[in-house]
């Protein structure tokens, strides 16, 4: 009661304002919400073209599921986006029914010219064709069997209409690439829209002109390390070897190889790397993958943990890539190292999404860095060896 009393003067005006605005807004929204007619939408509507290229003649196969039966004098109208042209020669006309087929899962409907309705078989007439707006109107022949509700209906327009004669007219696609609406109303209370994509054709060159060049280049010692690793390479590589030489505990060794890809493959390429084994010596000891034998995410270089009785922590070897556009992003960041992959799970080190010229960084060329470090616990041997394989493939 106190609340109501306190609101009786100042609060009353506030409430009045709120009610006025709410009513106004509700009225506006109501007018928008009730703009559209209360109609049942056709289901599963789609249009398949014989060719979706720009400005070409194409056949249309429209398919939809009726919600209501199409009975005596009921109509089916198909309204194509105005950018479709229905004026190609020979032109569509309501006197020529051969350009249209109407069928359901139960059988064909005969399509007749305007004014030629039959009643003995299921039939529609092509009542009118507005060639200016690409609007086609079919009318059910009164007295002929109905087109039932919940029926998958297929309408062919063009030379793909072959029942009762082969059509000789076709719609011409829009000349601009885009997405175009087609509205089907069947019968007059039920409608739906579908879209067709009109796009320029891809020139097929795959079987002849595509080419792919992959190279590995050696890098001498004293050169800049890959991917922002401070300092210079300590090992001279060849294109086919990385000779680590004698390793000293607590001292890192770095090496680099440069990769290049040239290709005109439209979707680009990927290069992965895998090892057949850890660096393994004839005595059975190995130098593990970075970091400490655990294959995790790329990380800043850390010395092996050298935990006694944990052989995996005596020494490790890692790889980094300067390519900042691996398919997963800039995975290797700056001087982040990862374990070299296996044949079952090779490590991606180079990737691009389009044609490449073999020289542009991140797109045709990159640098691969290798790093190794052992601890004083690493077993002595002079023949820790392994084989690495780069796999270079086009992206399909």
């Amino acid at each position, binding site marked *: 009661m106190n*609340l109501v009393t306190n609101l009786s003067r100042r609060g009353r005006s506030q409430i009045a304002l709120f009610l006025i605005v*709410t009513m106004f807004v509700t009225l506006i929204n109501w007018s928008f919400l009730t703009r559209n007619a209360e109609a049942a939408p056709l289901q599963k509507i789609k249009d398949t073209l014989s060719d979706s290229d720009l400005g070409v003649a194409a056949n249309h196969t429209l398919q939809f599921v009726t919600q209501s039966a199409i009975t005596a004098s009921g109509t089916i109208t198909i309204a194509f986006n105005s950018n479709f042209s229905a004026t190609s020669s020979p032109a569509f006309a309501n006197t020529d029914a051969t350009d249209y087929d109407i069928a359901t899962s139960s059988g064909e409907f005969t399509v007749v010219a305007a004014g030629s309705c039959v009643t003995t078989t299921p039939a529609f007439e092509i009542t009118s064709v507005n060639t200016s707006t690409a609007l086609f109107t079919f009318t059910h022949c009164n007295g002929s069997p109905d087109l039932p509700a919940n029926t998958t209906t297929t309408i062919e327009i063009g030379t793909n209409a072959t029942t009762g004669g082969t059509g000789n007219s076709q719609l011409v696609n829009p000349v601009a690439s885009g*997405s175009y609406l087609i509205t089907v109303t069947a019968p007059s209370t039920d409608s739906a829209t579908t879209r067709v994509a009109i796009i320029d054709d891809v020139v097929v060159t*795959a079987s002849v002109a595509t080419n792919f060049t992959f190279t590995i280049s050696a890098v001498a010692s004293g050169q800049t390390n890959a991917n922002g690793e401070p300092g210079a390479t300590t090992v001279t590589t060849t294109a086919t*070897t990385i000779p680590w030489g004698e390793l000293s505990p607590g001292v890192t060794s770095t090496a680099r190889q440069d990769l290049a890809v040239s290709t005109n493959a439209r979707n680009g390429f990927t290069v992965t790397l895998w090892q057949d084994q850890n660096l393994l010596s004839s005595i059975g000891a190995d130098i593990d993958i970075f970091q400490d034998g655990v294959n995790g995410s790329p990380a800043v270089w850390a010395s092996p943990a050298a935990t006694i009785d944990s052989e995996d922590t005596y020494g490790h070897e890692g790889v980094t890539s300067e390519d900042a556009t691996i398919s997963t992003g800039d995975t290797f960041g700056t001087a982040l190292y990862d374990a070299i992959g296996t044949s079952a799970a090779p490590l991606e080190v180079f990737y691009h999404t389009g044609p490449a010229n073999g020289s542009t960084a991140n797109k045709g060329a990159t640098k691969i860095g290798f790093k190794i470090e052992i601890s004083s616990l690493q077993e002595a041997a002079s023949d820790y060896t392994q084989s690495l*394989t780069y796999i270079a493939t*086009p992206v399909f």
Partner: protein
Amino acid sequence: MNLGRNKIWFLGIFLFSIVFGNLENARAEELVGVKMQPSIIEERADPGQTYSWTLRATNVGAKTQELYVVKRDISGLSEEGKPTFANFGEKTGFELSAWVQIAPGPFSIAPGETKDIPFSIVIPNNASPGAHLGSIFLSSEPVRPETTGIGIGYQVATIISLRIAGDTAEEATLREFRTDKKIYGKPEVNFITKVENLGNVIIKPRGPVDITNMFGKKVATLKMNESAGAILPNEVRRFEVLWQDNGLAFGKYEAVMSLGYGEDGRKTISAALAFWVLPGKLVGFTLGGIAVLFLLIFVAVKLYVKRKLGHLSRQSSPDASLAMTPVRPMSKSSILVLCLFYLLLAAVIIWSFLAIY
């Protein structure tokens, strides 16, 4: 004197041969690689038929290469279209490596030399219709060093994609169409879509993304999957396209994407979404203007209501209207109720604005 000069000449020639002789070996180790052509083969084929091609391999390195042939099936493509190679003997459902007849090598190719390697694909009579995918690698085997170190090899692939005639089905569905955000401060919008291949042939859906502003005007048309990336049967692939506009952009935008696919008739899958571009400064200025406008409306309505209520009050009680009614201060609960009313009012206005546009 002549003898000394001759000695110098011989020494110079000796040193020259050592240096440049080793330089030649060094150059041989500087670069290795191969050029393959074609790198992608896509063809339609019929069961029971044999098709022949020639692989051209060029040694682009400075050293003679011994290259071997390796055949592998492709078990799938990643969302980015990267092939995943099947293990030897693994059944993928669309194998073809067993149909490939090619000499295994090694092929010795001198620097700069091009070697033609012919091969055939014999399609079995009972080959399943639809997509079959595999690869031919030219492989350089790594040589394991004798002392601590790594031997490096490489494999370069040619991808083969065949569409075997028969009962083929082309069908796709959109799994996703979205932007990376709902509201942007500037027109830099990344559109992402995922398409699933429900048929038994490879499809390459591609098409336009039409962007219209809140006035219905088309402001841009982008191309999704312009490079026609492929999707294997029963797989999903992700495509992206970026919209950037240097001009002024504000308000609600709609994007409609339609992707066409199929070779036996072009089908379309489409979807639409909405997003907002609300530049910070412009939004602040606009909200400020709206706030001032509503304040003016509020004051005007309040004055009107107060006047009307006062008039009604005087009519119902003439004697009382002559007396001054004391103004009581509002209680805390009243203030709270009024604040809630104002919040509701603001919410209704904002909601209606968003709903309208």
